[in-house]
């Protein structure tokens, strides 16, 4: 045991330091510190993990290079893949800010006085999101959009003490799966509300027919998974509130540059995936679960997650503190509003930096740019005879497209041309095998879009 030089990142593991420490402790072998561990449990040799030896930085770099070279990165053009996770701008400054060692290597700021900067950044995140959605209370993050929805549902069950939740039948299928998982332990009931085949919007009639006094919440995605922007949101909110149910809206953060914020049309809880706010793709993680709630004691007391608040120090200076901790697991244990502790704080800082860089007008410009580009693609596709969008309704960055033949085959052809096309909808609905979901963002130039359209027009002619 031990070696003449210390191992990586364990500075006192050298022979010299080890024996110094052991002699101070008055023992001769570090294994004496395991004397209380049943002998038969101790492995007789180290586990088979890693590459059977230690790798230096350089060796690690070369090793990883071998794996990375097997990945194909699409940047020019960027992927047209939708599914609630699209390529977006990550300003270099955002990465720079979240690389600051004082943020990156900090723990949850349990010691307020020494972590005021981090706390101010998180307070600013909460504040910016609050103004974005126009709801007063925001927590310091959930894991991602899907768990934010699950937590919102759990919260609705707690607040209303009812068990039924209405969800769109075309709810994001991966979100639905997550929500079902999280609700498994609770005796909850998810009821699907139909969508209008023409508009792709939630059918208000069906919703009203299904809502009842057992309903804890009405949940809507705006835009929907298939791309449609909902119109009757106020009516839905009314319908929910009339029955004592909460109205939960999942939004797309950048879209609020153009769309009314959920707080304006009656949302009690608004949730979102924060990935578009400067987080990057990263093969799907980390994300950022945005979670905002109306200012209402009853609601706030049932919120999950950490919240940073404004306060003062002993000399009257402005200061920040973790607030309402009596909701949390480390105090309330089995009665906590959630089990979450490690969250996505650094991603919240990234989102705060991103929103600060954009400003309100920048966000509006960005939303407009995305709206125009996605509509440009739809228009060009319909010009070559492809059904795009499938639904007669407004859309923002993602939209459903229907082809004369199986989309998967088209996708393969596009890939041969260096293009990562849309998301084949048969991933979730086998009957939708001719359809895909495209996502177009500010990163797609007209040339990129033209290139996609030309490739498609070639491929469908074949």
């Amino acid at each position: 045991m031990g070696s003449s030089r210390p191992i990586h990142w364990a500075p006192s593991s050298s022979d010299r330091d080890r024996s110094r420490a052991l002699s101070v402790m008055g023992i001769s072998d570090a294994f004496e510190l395991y004397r209380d561990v049943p002998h038969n449990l101790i492995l007789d040799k180290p586990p088979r993990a890693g590459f059977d030896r230690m790798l230096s930085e350089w060796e690690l770099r070369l090793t990883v290079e071998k794996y990375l070279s097997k990945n194909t990165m699409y940047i020019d053009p960027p992927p047209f893949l939708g599914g609630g996770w699209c390529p977006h701008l990550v300003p270099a400054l955002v990465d720079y800010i979240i690389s600051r060692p004082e943020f990156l290597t900090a723990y949850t700021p349990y010691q307020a006085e020494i972590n005021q900067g981090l706390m101010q950044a998180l307070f600013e995140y909460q504040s910016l999101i609050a103004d974005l959605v126009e709801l007063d209370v925001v927590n310091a993050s959930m894991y991602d959009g899907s768990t934010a929805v699950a937590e919102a549902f759990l919260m609705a069950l707690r607040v209303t003490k009812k068990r039924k939740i209405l969800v769109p039948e075309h709810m994001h299928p991966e979100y639905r799966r997550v929500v079902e998982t999280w609700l498994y332990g609770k005796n909850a009931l998810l009821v699907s509300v139909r969508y209008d085949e023409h508009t792709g919007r939630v059918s208000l009639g069906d919703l009203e027919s299904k809502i009842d006094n057992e309903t804890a919440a009405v949940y809507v995605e705006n835009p929907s998974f298939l791309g449609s922007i909902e119109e009757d949101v106020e009516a839905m909110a009314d319908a929910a509130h009339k029955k004592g149910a909460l109205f939960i809206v999942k939004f797309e953060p950048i879209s609020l540059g153009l769309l009314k914020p959920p707080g304006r049309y009656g949302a009690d809880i608004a949730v979102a995936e924060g990935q578009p706010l400067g987080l990057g793709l990263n093969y799907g993680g980390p994300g950022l679960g945005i979670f905002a709630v109306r200012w209402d004691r009853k609601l706030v007391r049932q919120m999950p997650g950490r919240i940073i608040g404004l306060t003062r120090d002993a000399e009257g200076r402005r200061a920040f503190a973790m607030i309402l901790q009596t909701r949390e697991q480390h105090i309330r244990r089995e009665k906590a509003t959630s089990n979450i502790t490690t969250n996505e704080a650094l991603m919240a800082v990234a989102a705060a930096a991103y929103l600060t860089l954009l400003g309100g007008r920048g966000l509006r410009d960005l939303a407009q740019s995305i709206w125009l580009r996605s509509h440009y693609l739809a228009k060009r596709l319909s010009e070559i005879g492809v059904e795009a969008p499938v639904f007669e309704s407004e859309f923002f960055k993602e939209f459903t497209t229907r082809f004369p033949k199986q989309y998967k085959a088209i996708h393969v052809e596009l890939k041969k041309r260096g293009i990562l096309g849309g998301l084949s909808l048969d991933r979730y609905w086998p009957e939708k095998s001719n359809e895909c979901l495209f996502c177009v963002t500010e990163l797609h130039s007209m040339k990129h879009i033209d290139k996609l359209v030309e490739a498609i027009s070639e491929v469908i002619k074949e």
Partner: protein
Amino acid sequence: MSTSKKEWRQARWSEPLVYEIGDPQKTGVILPYLDELPKLAERVGARPQGKVFREDTPDLPGLSEVETARHFNRLAQMSYGVDVGPVPLGSCTMKYNPKIFEEIVRDPRIKFLHPLQDEDTVQGLLEMLYLLERWLAELTGMDRCSLQVPAGAAGELAGALMIKKYHADRGEERDEMLVPDSAHGTNPASAAMAGFKVVRIPTSSRGTIDLEALRSVAGPRTAGLMLTNPSTLGIFEDEILEVAKLIHDSGGLLYYDGANLNGIMGIVRPGDMGFDIVHLNIHKTFAAPHGGGGPGAGVVCAKGDLVDYLPRPLIERDDSRYFWDYSCDKCIGSMRIFYGNIVPLLKGFLYIASLGGKGLREVAIQSVINTNYFITLIKNTKGYELPYDPSKPRKHEVVISAKPLLNDTGVSAGDVAKALLDRGLHAPTMYFPLIVDEALMIEFTESEPLETIEEYAKTLKEIAEQAYTNPGKIKEAPANTSVRRVDDVYANHPKTVTPTYRVYLKRLRGEIK
């Protein structure tokens, strides 16, 4: 000329909120392809319309790039992490985060991969995740792991749901989850979220789970036991095999909270102890940084029949390729979208790749040496005591009590914590586990050099000495941090609680009382 006493003070910037310096018309980013907009507008023809579109511009303050950089740099100087000094928060495993990992994960061939892109285009990434899964299974003694869970608590919830579904599938009604009183708060919270009744198990005077008490509650309603070993006291559960047998015999399952693996990694495996399900925290044991609270990454692993219940997808390979296996016969579903927190997971991959099995074992040993070295230095210090059998070696961490200090001087564990901050050292975890009065829970991990441990012990000693001579001074700490002691009452009082700037303004305007 150059001797000077050790002084420390943190930067103080009284940095305004972005609201106080920003402006919705300001921006710090040039959007791509802006010159195309007129042409696009012309080609598209239409404009957004409908009643859900807004006319106004969102009221969000903007700043230029230079102002944004300065704002956050100044905030950073008022923060503190492992890269600034030791953060020996017990239970949190605040290791040093190797810089090479940060550099590698910034590669565009990771950053720019879409989660839904075709598997044949991400074989390299999948291979790394596959290896990671294999290694973690080996380290825990489990058969398979799911990389999906974004943190430890989510792993616990997954585990609790797996236990629930397992029993349900066998038609058994078991609604009680046993949780020791020393457990981390996430354990009972997770069990409750999964719909279990939480049954609290006391800790024996030896600092281990009370086997008698356990025996008295284990039975036909027992769904399982959630346990961490070593416990949050840093004490190894030496009767673990008996515990496992007892629970299994009563028909329950064993869940392992892996947050405390660091001191035994590569030496003892939860699987060999009898655990059926395990979660690990990549951001603790495997050196991914905490990021001021997250993102972390978890994994949840299982053995035998329980593998079927793991959240999907699992990473798989056949002869020619790696792929995500979504097949789910009995599985609980998915804990989040996609596959997991890839970036921290990859840091875990890099950590294990760097150290190998032998290195990981040395890490464990060094972390235990560090804990016990500290105990040797601090023991017999007036004011502190080591509760529960002091003759037992601790593992990854140790919990000392400042109860004598409180009794003698009125200086509490919380005051000691603030006094540490005042000397440029981060405080330990306070008041946890709940079974220790005035608890200070200290975990150096293997990454602190002996010198830091010595300094920390010395400082604790000095603080105790000061408490005996001038307790008032310590009650006033900290003075050297960017603000002085923060007013928690004001922060939480219904009349003043202010979670956002929006609420702050409403309060100013009298719209909220």
